[in-house]
């Protein structure tokens, strides 16, 4: 039996210490995903707190044979949707131009998880450009791409989180990626046009 399942069984029997261990084991992951979704550092803790409160009250109904991680991701993503719906600051199509350096960075295929060669200001610039590009996607597509590319969930794992078939997940990924690429290329063309002028 995995650690999670053992902890969940203890929680279901009313063991508060087991729930505290469960929170400590997953809090970083929840904070990370919430931050990726809402981009508001000041809101992360409150949303994460809501996530764990929901988990606490729903644990008695949790089936031990189901995937706890998929369930945790689903509750977190839904909590973020609720927050974003309330805030209504969705899909603002931003007019940001991509410099050659930024484009080269995005198109350098390979691992860019820790670009140590970049200074802090450059990293900030690139991150902000990436965030602006991502802001055109609706929250559902953004959450799918975040779970796929940042949380490194496989297609198989995504089918459990979103309760969809593998083919449906792939179709959603295909559309979301093509939409993001279209925005990227639009910004690239504008930047190239500026350079010619």
């Amino acid at each position: 039996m995995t650690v999670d399942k053992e902890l969940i069984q203890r929680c279901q029997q009313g063991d508060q210490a087991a729930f505290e261990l469960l929170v400590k084991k997953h809090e970083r992951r929840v904070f990370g995903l919430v931050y990726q979704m809402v981009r508001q550092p000041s809101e992360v803790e409150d949303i994460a707190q809501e996530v764990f409160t929901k988990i606490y009250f729903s644990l008695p109904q949790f089936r031990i044979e189901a995937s706890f991680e998929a369930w945790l991701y689903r509750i977190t993503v839904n909590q973020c949707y609720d927050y974003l719906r309330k805030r209504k600051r969705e899909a603002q199509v931003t007019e940001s131009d991509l410099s050659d350096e930024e484009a080269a960075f995005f198109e350098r295929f390979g691992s860019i998880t820790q670009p140590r060669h970049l200074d802090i200001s450059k990293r900030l610039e690139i991150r902000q450009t990436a965030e602006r590009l991502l802001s055109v996607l609706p929250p559902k597509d953004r959450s799918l791409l975040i779970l796929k590319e940042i949380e490194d969930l496989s297609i198989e794992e995504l089918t459990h989180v979103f309760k969809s078939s593998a083919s449906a997940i792939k179709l959603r990924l295909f559309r979301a990626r093509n939409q993001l690429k279209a925005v990227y290329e639009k910004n690239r063309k504008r930047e190239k046009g500026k350079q010619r002028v």
Partner: protein
Amino acid sequence: MSHQNLKGWLEEYAENSLSAEMTQDLEQHLAMCRDCQEQLRTIRLTANILRASSLAEAPAPAAGFALSVFLAIEQQRENYFFWSPLRLVALKAVPLMTVLAIALGFLAYTQITSELNAQQLTEEPLLETSLELSSKWGQEAAAVFSEQISQDKEQVVSTLLEAETLPQEVGKESK
């Protein structure tokens, strides 16, 4: 394998979860298919944009985060346990009320139809007797009327006969 089938495996190819055999098949196809090359480029480009957006560190949970979760749970527990049974009762009551409403409606319908049937059964003989009565009265009235007519007819004939015979009698007397 067809182009569409192979294109469907590009996500798994990018996440390195394909078997060696499938990887080989897909790479052979990729070498000559521009559409699949472009889609693989899209997957890698968007993956990089996503990773770049995560370059910032998410805020770290405070040391007392678990404690704050417990405090939030305690605050919500009262509401949760106060509302939860009521909500459950309300949720269970909806189908129960629907079934009850249907049952009551059915009962009322059967009651009304049976009463109507019973009424019809008692009303039919009345109708018959009233019809019979009316026909009897009609017959009697017709008989009285025809009798009256025959009496009148006889009277008229007799007066006519009397009128015919009178001038003759007057003539005879004058002669």
